[in-house]
């Protein structure tokens, strides 16, 4: 991994990627707020929901949280901190409950997307970004390092989960680190700041490390190394499973179900049923009810599987939920990528058309990059690979315990796979 270490050590990294990204982001924000009303003609919508959102899980899978190193929100946080930062310690409640807040935010944003319209509406997307920027500025102005990224960013939470499947691992030589007195990786030096994610390379996991390269630049002992690892192996070695992170994995699965289900005929029937039961035609109320049921039933299914596991392996339901919840991350990642692969490959050219329209060049034509049957095949391949990853992760997480305890979890993985296959068999609508 010398080439990667060289990149991370370079003084040009991550700035060489950070600033162009920030520039493109500024154009996106402007377009979302003041560009064309139509999502199919808006460069901001295309870049955000047709290119960036579908590609981001793939980046997490290949490079871990490297996106977080060049993320424009993080760049903004650094700038705010430089000129206005109070650098206060992060409040304890954020350290303790930050991931739960992320779980809630992720659900809230998905709900708001359906009720108020975020993906469909450039202005809706613009308002969401303004709200996030307000949060980033607040955290950057008062708290040390990248407190927003570590404790509140909903994408960071998802990134943390997905990056456990990532193929790059940053670690350090324990012999050199135990004798080190300066801890420059954490504290920084005169030229380079300490770890923005509140970690040290010896102990930081791929779920937190954003590969910013600061520790490579500051370590006086050349202790930090970058390694390539088997994808998903980050899930196998979890020593202290956290219920909050496992819950996020299950919540993501439920969100993929909801995103797909809203495009089916059964969705209209479900709405009609709820409308009759509740006696209201308010879409917000109806969607909230169905969304709650969908999320709770997915979590409930996991709770039942964990309960059966606990009966079989004599460990508590919570312990089983927390440990085996991580096993669903590869399938989450695959389902997320499969869902968005359709948008990327069936609508991808729209990014080029809208980008050219910025320069007054109007080009129209098919948005599709690949035909639908090829995209379908790729989706099923992804789901298959994700399922294998989840099954392997479940077995590895069960290591040293009776095999029967993992059987309900394996059954649930297969059940989730079947639901996903069913949903992907049905027509999917476009974003732009």
């Amino acid at each position, binding site marked *: 991994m010398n080439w990667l270490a060289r990149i991370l050590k370079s003084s040009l990294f991550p700035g060489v990627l950070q600033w162009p990204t920030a520039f493109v982001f500024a154009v996106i924000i402007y377009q979302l707020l003041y560009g064309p009303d139509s999502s199919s003609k808006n460069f901001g919508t295309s870049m955000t929901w047709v290119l960036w959102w579908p590609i981001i899980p793939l980046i997490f899978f290949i490079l871990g949280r490297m996106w977080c190193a060049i993320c424009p929100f993080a760049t903004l946080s650094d700038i705010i901190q430089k000129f206005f930062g109070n650098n206060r310690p992060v409040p304890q409640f954020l350290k303790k409950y930050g991931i739960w807040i992320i779980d809630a935010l992720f659900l809230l944003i998905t709900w708001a997307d359906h009720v108020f319209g975020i993906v469909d509406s450039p202005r*809706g997307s613009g308002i969401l970004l303004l709200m996030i920027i307000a949060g980033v500025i607040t955290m950057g102005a008062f708290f040390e390092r990248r407190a927003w990224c570590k404790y509140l960013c909903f994408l960071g939470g998802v990134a943390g989960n997905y990056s456990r499947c990532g193929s790059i691992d940053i670690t350090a030589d324990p012999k050199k680190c135990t004798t080190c007195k300066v801890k420059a990786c954490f504290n920084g030096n005169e030229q380079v700041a300490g770890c923005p994610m509140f970690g040290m390379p010896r102990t930081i996991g791929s779920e937190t490390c954003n590969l910013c390269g600061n520790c490579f630049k500051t370590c006086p002992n050349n202790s930090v190394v970058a390694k390539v690892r088997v994808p998903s192996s980050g899930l196998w070695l979890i020593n202290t499973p956290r219920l909050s992170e496992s819950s996020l994995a299950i919540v993501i699965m439920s969100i993929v179900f909801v995103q797909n289900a809203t495009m089916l005929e059964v969705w209209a029937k479900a709405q009609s049923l709820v409308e009759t039961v509740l006696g209201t035609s308010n879409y917000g109320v109806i969607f909230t009810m169905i969304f709650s049921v969908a999320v709770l039933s997915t979590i409930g299914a996991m709770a039942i599987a964990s309960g059966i596991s606990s009966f079989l392996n004599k460990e508590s339901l919570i312990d089983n939920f927390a440990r085996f919840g991580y096993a669903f991350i590869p399938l989450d990642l695959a389902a997320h990528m499969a869902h968005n692969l359709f948008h990327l490959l069936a609508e991808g050219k729209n990014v080029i058309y809208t980008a050219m329209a910025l320069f007054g060049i109007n080009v129209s034509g098919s948005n599709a990059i690949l035909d639908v049957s090829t995209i379908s095949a790729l989706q099923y391949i992804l789901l298959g690979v994700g399922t294998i990853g989840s099954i392997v992760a479940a077995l590895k997480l069960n290591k040293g315990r009776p095999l029967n305890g993992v059987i309900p979890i394996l059954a649930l993985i297969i059940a989730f796979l079947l639901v996903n296959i069913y949903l992907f068999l049905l027509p999917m*609508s476009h974003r732009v």
Partner: protein
Amino acid sequence: MKKFVTISLLIFLFLISGNIALAAENDHSGHSGPSTDIQSGEHSSHDATLQQSNDVIQPSHSEHQSNEPSQSSTGHGQSQGTSSPEHSSHDGQAQNQNSEAHDGGHGVKEVKEVNIKPWVYAFLAYTAGVLLLALILKKGRGKNNELVS
């Protein structure tokens, strides 16, 4: 005490900026700046506007029924095998409308015109307030972050 004051000021700023957005939104009739229709759970009755909007049209129940066959005929359904991958961007838009029809057929997602200006003003007001507060608090601290007496 300082923490209490900071948190109170932040909440105050948040409420004030939210208030700016709401007040401007309520005052807004026949906007002049860029705006769009976004979905809202509230029930309104500007059907004529809905018919003209080309972005996130929320059709009535009857539109929903009439649009459904056209969704399969435009051919984006992956399972039917009748779809043409070489659809035009116009098709994509039609599909988008169909998907909205799909979503909004029963619960009737209504649309509400949103003027972006108040949101931007509220954002700027909040941001300016936060940064000013941060700067004041920073001035009250020394170089090493200790309180200046």
